[in-house]
């Protein structure tokens, strides 16, 4: 789902509001969240999760082309921790799909085709 699809869904649910207002509301929510994080403020949404900053200390990096070392300053990066309701809903739906679909032979073929992707996912961890 993209931002514009999210706007479409919200506009359909809030059909008494002009589309422009819904679009602007989504933009404002994201802008307010970004501003909070940019000023070091946490975001706490019960049942969804929390956003905070993690500090990355200064380090010596390398220019991959020349091999020269460069000193990189310490910085903050955004971090999201999913809340309990989000974790549970995502995982429960996943367990249900696991239980309700015993693989048929066709699925097995599909799984084999999927395998390279899955390996990549595992390797990138």
């Amino acid at each position, binding site marked *: *789902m*993209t*931002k514009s699809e*999210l706007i479409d*869904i*919200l506009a359909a*649910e*809030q059909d008494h*509001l002009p589309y422009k*207002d*819904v679009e*602007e*509301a*989504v933009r*404002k*929510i*994201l802008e*307010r*969240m*970004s501003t*909070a*994080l*940019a*000023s*070091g*403020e*946490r*975001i*706490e*949404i*019960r*049942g*969804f*999760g*929390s*956003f*905070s*900053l993690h500090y990355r200390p200064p380090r010596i990096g390398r220019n991959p082309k020349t091999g020269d070392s460069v000193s990189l300053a310490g*910085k*903050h*990066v*955004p*971090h*999201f921790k*999913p809340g309990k*309701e*989000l*974790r549970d*809903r*995502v*995982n429960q*739906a*996943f*367990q249900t*799909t*696991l239980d309700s679909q015993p693989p048929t032979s066709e699925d097995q073929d599909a799984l084999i085709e999927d395998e390279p992707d899955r390996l990549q*996912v*595992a390797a990138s*961890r």
Partner: protein
Amino acid sequence: MALTKAEMAEHLFEELGLNKREAKDIVEMFFEEIRTALERGEQVKLSGFGNFDLREKKERPGRNPKTGEEIPITARRVVTFRPGQKLKSRVEAYAGTDR
């Protein structure tokens, strides 16, 4: 001090002229629709902010930290957040220490 849904709704009320009820509803639905998409197994991409991705974890050995008893951590699907370049650059510049 942390940003909450109440404060976001207040912000929409002040800046957009939505009434308080509408502002509260739209903030609530914003997060609910993201949860629903993730629950369906769909990635959520909010350009300029970041992506909520789903990862499938295999079963792995775990331990009850209290009793030391070995119990497997079952296979599960988890949500991860990858901040977008714009958000990363804005946050990188933050120099303070209070979080």
